């Protein structure tokens, strides 16, 4: 059932284009298996979207990419997650270092209860930024398309902004630490359509300099922003009762939405599902 792209036999030329590579990843919360058998090569400098019904484990897989799951007690990962060929879950890897290279934007906007300026500067400072802070703040806010709205009130609390502005501030905060990869966990699910549009435009801009992985509930959004799409699905477990998530199909976005190879994908993207 699972379509997997074999990573081990990947040619050397494509190897350098691959940013993150998941090899037979399975994730469990305690004894409860959330997702299993995920094989996936996430290309560098492109936008990869994860879609699928609720409970299929797409957010879980996303959080595994920068070890945010470490914060959830009892969450364990099998298999390997390779970042430029290095296993992120190797014993000697520093999760803090991983998160500095692979940033994350969350479902609910979560600015720090500090000023707008400090929201950006805080992350940069702890990442050891030595350059001109004012300039970095402006550059990051511009990249997140929120500079014009905030340039006159940088001293105000980040929590005083509207939801859409808060989310763009959070993106600016992530951009400011200049990660290589930005993970976005349903970044627009709490936002109105106009804010959503702004963020989608921004993603188009950001993909010039970053690899982006985005989880979305909204299939149109996946079509609009992504180059590659992974469709996650829920399967009944063969061995015991219960459901487990798996990667059903992973292909260029166009192919997923126009000519999917799996029947389940076809059903889901055409809305015949759940």
């Amino acid at each position, binding site marked *: 059932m699972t379509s997997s792209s074999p990573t081990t036999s990947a040619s050397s030329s494509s190897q350098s284009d691959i940013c993150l590579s998941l090899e037979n990843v399975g994730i469990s919360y305690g004894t409860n298996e959330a997702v299993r058998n995920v094989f996936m090569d996430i290309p560098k400098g492109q936008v990869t979207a994860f879609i699928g019904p609720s409970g299929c484990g797409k957010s879980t897989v996303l959080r595994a990419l920068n070890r945010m799951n470490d914060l959830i007690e009892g969450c364990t990962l099998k298999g390997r997650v390779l970042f430029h060929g290095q296993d992120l879950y190797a014993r000697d890897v520093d999760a803090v*270092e991983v998160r500095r290279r692979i940033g994350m934007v969350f479902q609910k906007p979560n600015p720090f209860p500090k000023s707008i300026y400090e929201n950006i500067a805080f992350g940069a400072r702890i990442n050891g930024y030595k350059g001109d802070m004012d300039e970095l703040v402006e550059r990051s806010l511009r990249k997140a398309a929120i500079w014009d709205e905030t340039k006159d009130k940088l001293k105000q609390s980040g929590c005083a902004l509207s939801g859409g502005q808060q989310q763009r501030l959070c993106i600016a905060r992530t951009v400011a630490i200049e990660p290589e990869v930005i993970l976005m966990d349903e970044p627009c699910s709490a936002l109105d359509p106009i804010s959503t549009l702004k963020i989608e435009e921004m993603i188009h801009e950001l993909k010039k300099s970053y690899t982006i992985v985005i989880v979305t509930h909204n299939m149109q959004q996946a079509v609009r922003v992504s180059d590659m799409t992974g469709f996650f699905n829920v399967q009944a477990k063969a061995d015991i009762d219960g459901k487990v998530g798996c990667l059903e199909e992973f292909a260029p976005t166009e192919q997923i939405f126009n000519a999917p190879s799996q029947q389940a994908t076809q059903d889901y993207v055409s809305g015949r599902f759940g």
Partner: protein
Amino acid sequence: MHTSLSPQAPGSRIPAASAGGFQRGSLTFRPQLSRNRWNAVLTGLAGLATTIAVLPLVLVLAYVLIKGGSLISFSLLTQLPPAPGLEGGGIGNAIVGTLLVTAIAALIAIPVGVGGGIYLAEYSSGGSFASFVRFGTNVLAGVPSIICGVFVYGLIVSTRIFFGQSYSAMAGGIALAVLMIPTVIKTTDEGLKLVPQELRLGALGVGASKMVTITHITLPAAFSPIATGIVLGIARAAGETAPLIFTALFSPFWPEGVFNPIATMSVLIYNFAIMPYQAQISLAWAASFVLVLMILAANLLARWLSQLARA
């Protein structure tokens, strides 16, 4: 903060430093980094703080168990304390006294506290009287327990208001009740606020009066948190000493009704701990054992009650 990337580091395949301003190290965990050292040191300190915080409980329980638990016998639980200088005896009157005084306190504090809590949660609509009662409850909760004793001394003991009696079990019970009331009001208020509004509307919607709604629907729905708070309040009152020293006083005899001085375990511990006689000191440890056992049992009961609600 960061050491620069060494050429042979395990993560060297990764292109380092994507942009100016940030120095990127390898992904490898390096314990010698100052941030990782600080992490280890601070985690160690927090662990040490926790050890220090837990240690007194372990030590106190151990001593109470060893010094007090070993003395427990049927005669100790049923006899009167000996006269100074004599051996043997027991703490029977103090056990009965503690139960009696605490029961008096509960009988006063529960109706008053639950009633006040009902007013705050169900009737008040954020007016100035309600905020005064809330403020007063907080202030009363912060009044030192010894001052409650002074108050009851001035109100009841020195005025001999009960049949000309000065020190009495009743006075002690009232002093403890003053301590308990804020706790009971708060837990009732908070417990009732947890009851979903729909439940109230449902009852009012079938034509129940407000009183019937509260007594038959809201209050039972909030039973578990309220009961938890009350049990904890009683447990705390049972161990209180300061308000009893000059209200209930002490008595070497069996209780003679609620209008006479009465022995309690807490005052017994206080009085006997500073006596130069080994028999009395032993009885103080034994009373500590019984008191701690009762209070811990009440605390576990309270936990059980609060878990009852979640199930």
